[in-house]
Each structure stands twice: as structure tokens, then as C-alpha cells.
């Protein structure tokens, strides 16, 4: 029991420190306190937003966009990244190409996306898919190109056919890279969300922040940012759980 309390304390401490620093900055007089809403005011605002403005719906809409964007982006990145990583010669020409597109900030593409995909849901998803795909595809092909061919040879000497090598050796060795790609893509997708919701979104955390900034509603902006952080954190935690479960064999995971 005591241990448990200590653990909770350890996890909570940095958060409490941030809240304390937040109050500190506000009270110190260094900043105009009108520009820094108090933590309790932000909390009250979030309750209000939940109760009356459908904040839950905004969270849901944004999460769904990120989820679909990452799912589709990674579903494309896994086979493409696999092929690039598997065939060494493909990597040589794909590498600069992928890095070129990955380096483009998704925000810069918004005008084009509007032209080609309009301003509805597909446009936002396209941006998120784009960001997830390029973040994931690199992780995939870097990982796959490092698969040790020794394991394939061993399997062949034990009598494995080509398809058995694929199912029983290559897939298990690819799973860690898929999970890493997912985590990287999730991070990038949340970062891109606000940009994608700039495309005239009605709902979503990004658009909520966007609208609030028009009317200078700082507390709403804070609520939006904190919600994005929390949901992203939860998703990452869930993925990490998955990783420890599936990758117990890896040197760095578990004991």
C-alpha cells in the first residue's frame, strides 16, 4: 500500500509542480495576469465546456480523425516501407523522395489540399494520412532493412519454405517496427491535427482552439491544448502497453 502511494506520488509530483509554477508565474506579476488564466479557472472552463458546449464531442471528433489518419497512413506505410526496406536497391532511390515529402510541413500543403479535396472531412484526413504515412514509412524501412538475414538462413536450414520464412520469421521481426511506426505517427498526427482542422473545421479540438483565438478566449485555448496532450498521452500509453505485451522478447522491453 505504502509503495503504491509512493508511486502515485512520484507520477503526480511533476504535474503538481507544473501547476504550482503556473500559479507562480501568474502571481509573480512578471506577466499580465489577464494573459494567464488561473489553473482553477481553466478547470472550471473545461467543466463548463463539457457540460454546455459539447467538449466531449470535440475530443471525439479529433480523436477519430487522428485515429483514422494514423490507421490509414500506417496501413499504407507498412507494406510500402516493407518493400523499400526489403529491396536494398529500392531504398537508394526512395530515401531522398520520402525525405523530401516528409520535410514538407503539412501546414504548407493546406491550400493545395483545399483545392483538390475541398474543405470537408476528407481534406483533414488527407493531411493526417499524409503526415502519418511519411513518418511511419521511414521507421518501417529503416527497421526492415536491419533485419538480420541470419535468421532467415537458420529457418531455411530447418526446412522452412519461402512462405514459412515470411510468416514465422519476417513477420515477427517486423512487428516491433510497426509498433514504433504507430507511435511515431501518432505523435506527428496530433501535432498536425490543429493544422488539419484549420481547413474550416466545425468541430474538433483544433477548431475549438482556432475559434477561441479569434475571440481571445485564452482559457478555452488552454483547455484545448491540455485535452490534446491528455488524449495523445493516453494513446501513447495504450500503445506502450501493447509493446510490452508483444515485445517481451526484446532486450530493452521488460526484464
Amino acid at each position, binding site marked *: 500500500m505504502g509503495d503504491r502511494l509512493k508511486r502515485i506520488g512520484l507520477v503526480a509530483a511533476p504535474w503538481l509542480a507544473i501547476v504550482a509554477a503556473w500559479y507562480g508565474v501568474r502571481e509573480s506579476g512578471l506577466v499580465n495576469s489577464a494573459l494567464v488564466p488561473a489553473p482553477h479557472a481553466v478547470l472550471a472552463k473545461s467543466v463548463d465546456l463539457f457540460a454546455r458546449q459539447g467538449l466531449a464531442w470535440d475530443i471525439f471528433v479529433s480523436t477519430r480523425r487522428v485515429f483514422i489518419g494514423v490507421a490509414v497512413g500506417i496501413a499504407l506505410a507498412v507494406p510500402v516501407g516493407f518493400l523499400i526496406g526489403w529491396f536494398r536497391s529500392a531504398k537508394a532511390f526512395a530515401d531522398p523522395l520520402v525525405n523530401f515529402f516528409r520535410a514538407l510541413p503539412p501546414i504548407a500543403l493546406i491550400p493545395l489540399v483545399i483545392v483538390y479535396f475541398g474543405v470537408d472531412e476528407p481534406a483533414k484526413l488527407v493531411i493526417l494520412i499524409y503526415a502519418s504515412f511519411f513518418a511511419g514509412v521511414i521507421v518501417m524501412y529503416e527497421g526492415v532493412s536491419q533485419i538480420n538475414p*541470419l*535468421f532467415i*538462413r*537458420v*529457418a*531455411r*536450414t*530447418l*526446412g*522452412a*519454405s519461402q512462405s*514459412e520464412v515470411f510468416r*514465422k*520469421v519476417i513477420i*515477427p*521481426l517486423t512487428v516491433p517496427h510497426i509498433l514504433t511506426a504507430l507511435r511515431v505517427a501518432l505523435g506527428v498526427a496530433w501535432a498536425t491535427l490543429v493544422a488539419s482542422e484549420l481547413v474550416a473545421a466545425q468541430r474538433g479540438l483544433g477548431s475549438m482552439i482556432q475559434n477561441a483565438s479569434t475571440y481571445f478566449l485564452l482559457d478555452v485555448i488552454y483547455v484545448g491544448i491540455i485535452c490534446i496532450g491528455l488524449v495523445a498521452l493516453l494513446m501513447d500509453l495504450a500503445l506502450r502497453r501493447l509493446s510490452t505485451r508483444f515485445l*517481451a*522478447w*526484446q*532486450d530493452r522491453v521488460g526484464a
Partner: protein
Amino acid sequence: MSEPRIRFERVSLEFPTAAGPLRVVDDVSYDIHEGEFVAVIGPSGCGKTTMMNMLAGFQRPTSGRVLLDGREVAGPGSDRGVMFQEYGVFPWLTVRENIAFGLTLKANRVPAGEREAIVERYLGLMGLAGFADAYPKHLSGGMRQRLALARAYAVKPQFLLMDEPFGALDAQTRSNMQNLLLEILAAERKTVMLITHSVEEAIYLASRIVIVTARPARVREIVAVPFAYPRDEAIHEAREFGELRSHIRDLVMDEYRAQQGQARAVAFSE
């Protein structure tokens, strides 16, 4: 004499490199008969692994033939168990699953009950029972090699090809592994090819020793080891052991120097 199980017949192999073809194996011929244990010894980088790769089915000779029971090797297969120079245990499978791996393949599938029995047997034989459900990351080097041996044995290969299997182990573990190998071979005889750098290991384990030259590998000499199986540590002290050891060591050192000279010549020419 009966037909050889393995025959290298005027085998040569060249790798294409930027500087032109690099001859690694040169006109090698020798036979390995049923139940024989042949050790191949030669300087580092001379082409021993390449020789074994041709027998394992990963590489084709540029000229000549590698024959298994009179038929040319066409590719890898579970009739030839291979232990690689690096640990080849599958890190994503537990010890038990590693041993069972080959038995789950179409080529050597057995019913689940029988599979479990085989796995249990080798877990015991190799002293891995306490680690059956551990992942290889928890195993020591010696245990990994025992696991690789168990996994190779589980599919009942007729041949065992080993590429410096104990090279990375400390002296004590290495000696234990040698004895374990002799024991398991006494229980389940195989036709064996072992690549090693250690003259003692070659004499202690093998019935014949093929000494190969600096690159490209040619057969320098083949010596028969005069000790009968089962063997025990005591033969290390035998007079013939010492004589054989100094004879082979002289040959190996000679080739080792030749290889060094070659490396230097290459360095100068660049």
C-alpha cells in the same frame, strides 16, 4: 569403401567484386563418409564458411560439384542441420519454441504430442529445462549454443554442419560444450563437418582433419585422428595427441603467415 555421403568434387568459388573476381575456394576435393566427423581448420578469412555455405545450400560453386549422397546440392534443407558462427537463436521465441520451431514446419511436421516429447527430451539433454519458457535474452553464450544445437537436432538431420560453434565461448564453457557434443553424438550419430580455429578442438572431436590453405582455400593436407570414440578428456595428455597437435599447428601457422602476407600485399597495393 562405401559411397561417401558428402563429396566436394573439384569445387571452386569466385565472388564477383569491384576489383574483379575474387577466388575464395580453389579446386577443393574431399569426401566425408557416413558417421565421420570431419574438422576443417585454416586461417581466418580463407574461405571455410564459404565452403560450408555451399554444402548448406546457400551458395553454388563457380565450378565443380558438391554432392550429397551422389546428388548435387540444390538448396538448404532440414537433412543438414547448421550451427552458424554467430548465435542464430530466434530472439522472439522462447527456448521451448526455438527447439520446436523446425517441428512446426511442413517439411518435418509431427503431431503436437510427439513434438512436446522431442522438445522435453532436448530441454533435458541440453540442460535447458529450467529455462524452457525464457526468452534467449536471458541466456548465456553457452546456453544459446546449446539451444542452437537442440533446435538443429530436433528435426533429426542426418548431417550436422557447424561453423566455429564454440568460438565465442570461454575455455571452460567451450570444453563443456565439446563434451556435450561428443555425448549427444554418441547417443545419436550424425555425419559431421566442423569448422574451427582450434587445433585441440579439431583433434579432440574429429575423426579426420582437413587443413586448408590461405585464401583461396585449397586442401593442404588431410590427417586421420587415431583415437577411437567414445573419447574423454584424458586423450589430451596422450603422446599422439601432442605429436598431431604440433604437426597441425605447424601447417596452420604456415598458412596463417601466408594469409597475413596476403593481407599486407593487399594493403600495399592499395
